[in-house]
């Protein structure tokens, strides 16, 4: 979370006017929105080094590096660099059309994300206004008069001393509350669809492989499961043949489909981004 830490002057980057408690940029989208909309800067006149530099300086201010945030930033910065390169270099005579389309779609994804981010920023301001207005009218919360206290049922009925102790332990739990890891492994990020796409890229080249080989280097159990589901998916579509000699034995996967893969092979992150963008675009139109 890039919202704590002391504020440091970020060169061209001014603090957001409505940041209340922590006037720092919250992430690459925040930063980009600010640069484009508020500063009205042509990004191609801004040195990307300075953006990256400013962002790194900001990250250094944090006591620890949030890998997710840093990765997110890299992704956005990479798209920017790519766009800028394309703009600066004279168009080569033989442009790779696929690359060109790819770049445009990356740009569109980024644009859609920026629009979505901006939309919620504005919604947030509206919510703040609502809360502000609501605060002018204070509720009566005085509650039951003492003379009716004898009528009220005992709220401690059925509560044991052990439950009370457990409640204390809950209250004393160190915060931040430790959380279950799996729910921040996005279902989307480990989607079966992505795994299918990857396998139909890998398998034609390998011809045949053990499931163990296909999950080499995968540490998350969830991802192994997703890969397994993907194998089943391919089997259902008649693209692979499965063979397991003995129970719990090695599972062999053999590619039956055509070479070259049938499914496009987006990188996992991109696919996720694209899905998000498509969803948001649909929402704007809706």
């Amino acid at each position: 979370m890039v919202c704590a830490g002391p504020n440091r002057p970020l060169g061209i980057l001014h603090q957001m006017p409505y940041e209340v408690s922590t006037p720092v940029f919250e992430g690459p989208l925040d930063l980009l929105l600010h640069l484009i909309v508020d500063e009205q800067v042509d990004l191609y006149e801004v040195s990307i080094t300075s953006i990256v530099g400013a962002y790194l300086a900001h990250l250094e201010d944090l006591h620890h590096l949030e890998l997710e945030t840093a990765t997110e930033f890299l992704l956005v910065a990479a798209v920017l660099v790519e766009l800028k390169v394309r703009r600066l270099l004279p168009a080569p005579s033989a442009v790779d059309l696929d690359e060109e389309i790819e770049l445009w779609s990356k740009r569109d994804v980024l644009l859609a994300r920026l629009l979505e981010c901006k939309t919620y920023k504005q919604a947030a301001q509206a919510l703040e206004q609502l809360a502000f207005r609501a605060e002018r009218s204070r509720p009566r919360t005085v509650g039951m008069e003492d003379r009716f206290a004898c009528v009220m049922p005992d709220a401690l009925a059925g509560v044991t001393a052990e439950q009370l102790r457990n409640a204390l332990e809950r209250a004393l739990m160190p915060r931040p509350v430790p959380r279950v890891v799996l729910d921040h492994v996005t279902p989307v990020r480990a989607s079966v669809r992505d795994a299918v796409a990857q396998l139909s890229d890998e398998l034609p080249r390998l011809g045949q492989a053990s499931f163990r080989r296909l999950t080499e280097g995968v540490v998350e159990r969830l991802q192994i499961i997703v890969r397994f589901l993907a194998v089943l998916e391919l089997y259902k579509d008649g693209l692979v043949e499965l063979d397991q000699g003995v129970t719990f034995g090695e599972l062999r996967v053999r590619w039956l489909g055509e070479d070259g893969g049938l499914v496009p092979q987006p990188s996992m992150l991109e696919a996720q981004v694209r899905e998000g963008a498509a969803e948001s675009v649909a929402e704007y139109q809706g």
Partner: protein
Amino acid sequence: MADAPHARTPARPEELRAIEAVLMVVEEPVEPGLLAELLEVGPAKVEHLCSELAAAYQAEERGFVLVRVAGGYRFQTHPDLAPYVERLALRGQSARLSAAALETLAVVAYKQPVSRAQVAAIRGVEVDGVVRTLERRGYIEEVARDAGPGQAVLYGTSRHFLERLGLDSLDDLPPLGDFVPGPEEVELLENGLRSGE
């Protein structure tokens, strides 16, 4: 205290008086269903009586109003008189939410039920800390679990959220469409990201 004038004709309906009494002692908005039960009348009648009371308070320029919020009715001070009430320095003044918290809250409010990862994807940053803050302060709560492999916690806004925003239900949220950037801004963004000519 002066005595009431003795020619009190006709008597004020007991239902109205009972609603006034009950609203004096509730700590949270009271649902029409509960009022109906207490008064032994139908819910439609309750709604009607409450609107009647609310309108009368307005017309009489009372210092308080009867509002419908978070699915129930309650007494609140008239917004006009905020300066007096603010001077009371009541306990429990709420701390302001940071911009980050507000934005996360907005995403949860409009996209609920929504997982932390989905919120993070929209906001482009990790949101665990903010989500925890919002949860602890009672604005959002776990409403379901994702059916997917991770069984991610899905969050939604709470009743407290509605109360704090003065909304009766989520339907009263301003439509998200109102906040989509206008054409000039879209153009600005497009130009900012243009590649090549």
